[in-house]
């Protein structure tokens, strides 16, 4: 598995907190590094940024390269249970356990201070990782996340393929469902969503469902619908500094 890592100047002298960035469908570890423009804000706040790949690659699994929204580049941050995928496609464990261990063992990272963010499928990944691990992440934010994958075509295709047809197994990877059972330290979720995002109109993202669930469960969330923005990295790079600052507030507290 490949990952990108940004080390701020402060890391030359001391351990720094880590922001894990999860990318979306079709992305590799490179997209965020080259397109988001996060380094300046991360440098200012002394934050390490780690951007993993979005799936294992070259596993020789039948069908892994057939779709852009399933298989290669589309790991959905779950631990697959279906036979074809369960050995290689364990992105949830990779993000929450294996990668943090690797980072803290090899880089000047403070393992007690980490937070998580992401875009689209990665936004879904960030939300579920934070909700399933109360207290592990100091902060969570997302750009155009897939908020309720059980109810959208992307999520249904991925969950069916990785987890099988038993929908009770899907619930533990759906942020909107997880919110309703969340019990842990107070969160402060920031979500930015482009108003002109084609996938919002297509019913793939469903932020209203997450907002309703957070309102019901009294989980703090600020959701910003940004006029004129689509699903692209132009959108991400326009607001990434806001998100890094949001994370810095908690990572540097």
């Amino acid at each position, binding site marked *: 598995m490949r990952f990108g890592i940004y080390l701020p100047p402060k890391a030359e002298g001391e351990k720094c907190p880590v922001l894990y960035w999860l990318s979306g469908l079709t992305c590799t570890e490179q997209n965020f590094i080259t397109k988001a423009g996060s380094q300046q804000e991360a440098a200012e706040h002394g934050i390490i940024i780690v951007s993993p790949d979005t799936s294992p690659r070259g596993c020789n699994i039948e069908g892994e390269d057939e779709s852009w929204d399933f298989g290669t580049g589309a790991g959905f941050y779950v631990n697959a249970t279906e036979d074809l995928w369960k050995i290689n496609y364990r992105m949830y464990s990779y993000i929450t356990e294996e990668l943090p261990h690797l980072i803290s063992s090899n880089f000047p990272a403070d393992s007690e201070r980490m937070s998580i963010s992401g875009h689209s499928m990665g936004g879904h990944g960030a939300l579920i990782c934070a909700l399933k691990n109360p207290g592990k992440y100091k902060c969570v934010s997302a750009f155009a996340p897939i908020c309720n994958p059980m109810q959208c075509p992307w999520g249904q295709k991925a969950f069916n393929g990785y987890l099988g047809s038993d929908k009770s197994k899907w619930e533990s990877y759906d942020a909107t469902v997880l919110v309703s059972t969340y019990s842990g330290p107070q969160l402060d979720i920031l979500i930015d969503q482009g108003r002109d995002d084609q996938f919002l109109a297509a019913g793939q993202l469903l932020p209203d469902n997450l907002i309703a669930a*957070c*309102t019901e469960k*009294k*989980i*703090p*969330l*600020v959701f*910003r619908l940004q006029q004129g923005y689509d699903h692209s990295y132009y959108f991400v790079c326009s607001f990434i500094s806001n998100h890094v600052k949001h994370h810095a507030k908690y990572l540097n507290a």
Partner: protein
Amino acid sequence: ACFSLLPSPPVIKKKVCRSCPNAALIRWESGNTNPVDSYTVELGEISRERSETAVTESIVGIPTYESIIQLLSGRSYLIYVRAVNIGGPSERSDPVIIYTTGGTLFHLNEETAHPSLAISEDGFTMFYGDEYTELNDITLSDNAFSRCVAIMGELIPIRGKHYWEVEVEEHTEYRIGVAYEDTQRNGYLGANNTSWCMRHVMTPSRHKYEFLHNGSTPDIRITMHPKRIGVSLDYETGKLAFFNTDLSQHIYTYKCHFLHYVHPCFALEKPGALTVHNGIEAPEYITFS
């Protein structure tokens, strides 16, 4: 021989002096019937170690009846004023004590209040009663809001950062923010380009929050309804930010280039109450907005 009388010492108008963490606005009356050429402000920091406060700084040649003095935060100062004419300087005025340990302090200007508003005795709570006051039978000051049930606070004429908090009930419908001195008194806060405000109203389905300037707002949804809202004004960076202080949560930041100093402003959309808390230190988390 030609004799010139020394001027009399000015009288500092203590009630209208204002301070914030890094500066103070000192205002005075001349105290003289004859013309005064200029004024001199003298100040010294009050120290626990010394019983008397020595004057360590003078600002000379002040042509008007007020001056903004740059100070250090977290201190206490004794400030005097002298009048100066051709004959020389007057005795020092009675001093005013200025504290820069708290935050920015301002009072609500009752002259600007819509007639439907009542102000508490301490001057920091506004009430909109159950009956809207019709304007037909009363003479309204030019300075008072006539449509928006609003009131303005005193001008904040000092550069730098300022912070205050507003306490509301969960279902209070309000507008809180800032406005220029000349904002239209027959307009609504946020509906023009001279005011910026956070607005909360109840719809049949949800709490609705708007951040209005020039009549438009971004689309923001909040899941926790603030009962104590922090307002941070930074003239240098041109930012006006709002926070849910109970959660230390940043809600929204305007990025604007203020052409003039602004007044804090407050309005109630429906009967209810709102309390202003100021003269308090800004919490650290607001620096991340």
